[in-house]
């Protein structure tokens, strides 16, 4: 049992004078174009509480997106709903509490003019400052701006803070990353083909304002939306059409990265060469800027969504800013539950209403109260179904417990005694976690790992005896494999699993590494991590020497789970994830040999809480 249990540990149950208190019943919607410093016009939707008296001044919530800020709903929907309905209940709750909500199409997207070369370009980030300047000069503005969002809009909220505009008092990045290379695009150095193709395709259609392609992918959006909402004064859609025409100059750099192998590979698109593209537009490069004004940050994610839990922890460890960090058991954006112990749950907890009211409480405390003075991380232990909180990470009582691979596919806490034990595994390139996994989660899909029982039949597995007592696993497991291969390249996918009394397999977490990136760097990582540092740079890459044993050591994604007494722990190893990642190597079918003997004891370090 963890010693960190705390009755106040549920971040969504905390109510005080800053908690949501509705003051207004409805809100008005208007829109306009505003000019950036370089003349590019951005489209804004402005939502103000109805009933403001002249002279009333209110704070503003700013939301900047590349996904169409609001929508021109199809009829009959626009006969009953406002254009902001896709944000429901955010606008309703924030305006009710007395905030203005401003939704912006970033340049090159939606109804905004301009074009974009990369996501989070320097121009796009600087636009945030120009927008804030406009906001604080409005007659209803009290001079305070906060920003939040999920996914891309979580990124833009945090990017806004790097401008150090004095009016920006707090930001709330949700389900967003710091490290473009590994967060979603090349996790473990492996190309996330499926998500990137879908994301790039969806972005192109939205930038052209074409909805028909969504009919087979996301039919609810096709039914609901005709496209992006035009600025209201643009009755003939002239400006909208002009803006969309400018988007034809957009570059979609992710279309040309399937041959990328290294973080520092240049990416060429047409005549333009992007050097260091991934790192130059990664927020981790701007830690100094984020800390300069020391604004409070509320960051949140799920244990099961891309690399974002690792990033919440990295942010918590690396930045001095006062912080609330929250990691739960939901899907991308917390619209659906995703707890692998309870896959048939229908409703997410907290509800979107309760979650947003907690966000309002945070911002109110920053703007009207004593602010935030310290760091607290709230994390949900799945399987135990409890919230916990800590001011440090890893939490108190944490240690690493080593579990060794043994003969007969066993896993024990004892080091192997055999001189020559090893297991061969021929990589099966048909192994898959399906499409409802952490790497497609950023598309907003459900997360479903209930296929592991069947999937394990194709994998190399090592399983413990039934546990004699409950075991809380909180943090990043670290795998160490002594491995040789018949080929010079490959990828390893490691799954940590719970096997219950009926041999059902419950996914706990996973990690992966492309084997040419196995070198552990002695350099200081660019942000704090609690697992071995792989640079993914070309200079550190090493082809395998066939049949020669190499050490493969990497961290699995952070998690917090309780494996119950009587259940078993399993480590399952694959060489591919067919429906998600690019195949490594492109040709051939490697046979890997996993050593499990006195000289080369392959093992997994599991972060347990006493």
């Amino acid at each position, binding site marked *: 049992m963890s010693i960190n249990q705390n009755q106040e540990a549920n971040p969504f149950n905390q109510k005080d004078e800053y908690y949501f208190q509705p003051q207004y019943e409805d809100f*008005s*919607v208007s829109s306009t174009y505003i000019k950036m410093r370089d003349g590019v016009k951005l489209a804004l939707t402005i939502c103000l509480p109805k009933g403001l008296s002249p002279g009333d001044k209110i704070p503003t919530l700013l939301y900047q997106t590349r996904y169409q800020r609001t929508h021109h709903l*199809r*009829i*009959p929907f*626009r*006969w*009953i*709903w406002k254009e902001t*309905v*896709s944000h*429901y209940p955010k606008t309703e709750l924030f305006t009710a509490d007395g905030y203005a909500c401003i939704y912006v199409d970033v340049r090159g997207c939606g109804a905004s003019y301009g074009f974009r070369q990369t996501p989070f370009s320097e121009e796009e980030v600087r636009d945030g400052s120009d927008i804030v300047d406009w906001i604080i000069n409005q007659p209803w503005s009290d001079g305070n701006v906060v920003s939040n969002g999920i996914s891309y809009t979580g990124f833009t909220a945090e990017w806004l803070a790097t401008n150090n505009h004095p009016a920006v008092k707090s930001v709330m990045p949700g389900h967003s990353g710091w490290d473009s290379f590994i967060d979603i695009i090349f996790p473990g150095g492996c190309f996330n083909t499926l998500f990137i193709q879908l994301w790039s395709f969806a972005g192109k259609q939205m930038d052209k304002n*074409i*909805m*028909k392609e969504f*009919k*087979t*992918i*996301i*039919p*609810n959006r*096709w*039914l*609901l939306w*005709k*496209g992006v909402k035009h600025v*209201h004064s643009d*009755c003939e*859609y002239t400006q*909208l*059409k002009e803006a969309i025409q400018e988007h034809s100059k957009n570059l979609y750099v992710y279309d040309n990265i399937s041959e990328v192998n290294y973080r520092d590979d240049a990416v060429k698109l047409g005549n333009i060469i992007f050097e260091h593209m991934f790192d130059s537009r990664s927020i981790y490069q701007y830690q100094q800027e984020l800390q300069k004004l020391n604004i409070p940050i509320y960051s949140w994610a799920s244990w099961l969504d891309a690399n974002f839990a690792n990033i919440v922890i990295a942010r918590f460890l690396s930045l001095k800013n006062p912080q609330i960090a929250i990691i739960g058991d939901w899907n991308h954006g917390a*619209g659906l539950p995703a707890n692998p112990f309870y896959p048939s749950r229908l409703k997410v907890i907290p509800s*979107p209403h309760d979650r947003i009211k907690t966000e309002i409480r945070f911002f109110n405390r920053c703007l009207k109260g004593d602010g935030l003075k310290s760091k607290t991380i709230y994390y949900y232990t799945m399987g135990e179904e409890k919230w916990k909180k800590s001011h440090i990470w890893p939490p108190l009582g944490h240690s690493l417990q080593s579990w060794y691979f043994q003969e007969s596919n066993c896993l024990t806490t004892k080091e192997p005694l055999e001189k020559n034990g090893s297991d061969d595994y021929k990589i099966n390139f048909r192994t898959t976690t399906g*499409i409802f996994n952490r790497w497609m989660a950023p598309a907003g*899909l459900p997360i479903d790992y209930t296929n592991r029982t069947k999937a394990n039949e194709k994998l190399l597995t090592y399983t413990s005896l039934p546990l004699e007592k409950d075991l809380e696993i909180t943090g990043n497991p670290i795998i160490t494999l002594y491995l040789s291969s018949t080929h010079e390249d490959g990828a390893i996918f490691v799954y940590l699993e719970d096997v219950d009394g009926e041999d059902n397999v419950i996914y706990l977490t996973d990690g992966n590494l492309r084997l040419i990136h196995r070198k552990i760097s002695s350099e200081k990582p660019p942000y704090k991590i609690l697992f071995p540092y792989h640079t993914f740079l070309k200079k550190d890459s090493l082809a395998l020497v066939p049949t020669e044993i190499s050490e493969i050591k990497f961290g699995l994604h952070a998690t917090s789970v309780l494996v119950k007494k009587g259940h078993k722990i399993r480590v399952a190893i694959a060489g591919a994830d067919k429906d998600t990642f690019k195949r490594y190597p492109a040709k051939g079918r490697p046979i890997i040999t996993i050593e499990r003997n006195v000289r080369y004891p392959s093992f997994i370090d599991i972060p347990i809480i006493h």
Partner: protein
Amino acid sequence: MEELIPKLSNLLNKAIEIREDKNQLLIELNVKKKDLIPGDLGTPNEVKDMIRVFGGVKQNIPMEINIDEKTKTITLKLLKKEDFEIISTAMKNIWGRVPELLLKAFNAEPGKTTEFRDLGDFDDNY
């Protein structure tokens, strides 16, 4: 926003008044929403798409469509009695079909969306 769907049918019934004149073969939709901006009432093509996709009328039924933004009224003038009956029946059921279709769309698995192919395409020209 999925949580808004259960109340959708009621909202539509309250927000849109449908009147018929069987003698004149007219069907009127009067939209009660107060803060409609110009263009929000719709275009004739959008009305036809709504009847086809949400009303389930797959036949191409000729009709005159008049949009009056001042009175917030859409008038459908049918040319034949049989056509009037078809559209009248469709309009009686349309607000129940809208949330059904939307819920199906929210629950559809990506790639397994063949039933939406049969709905045809919206005219998304501006």
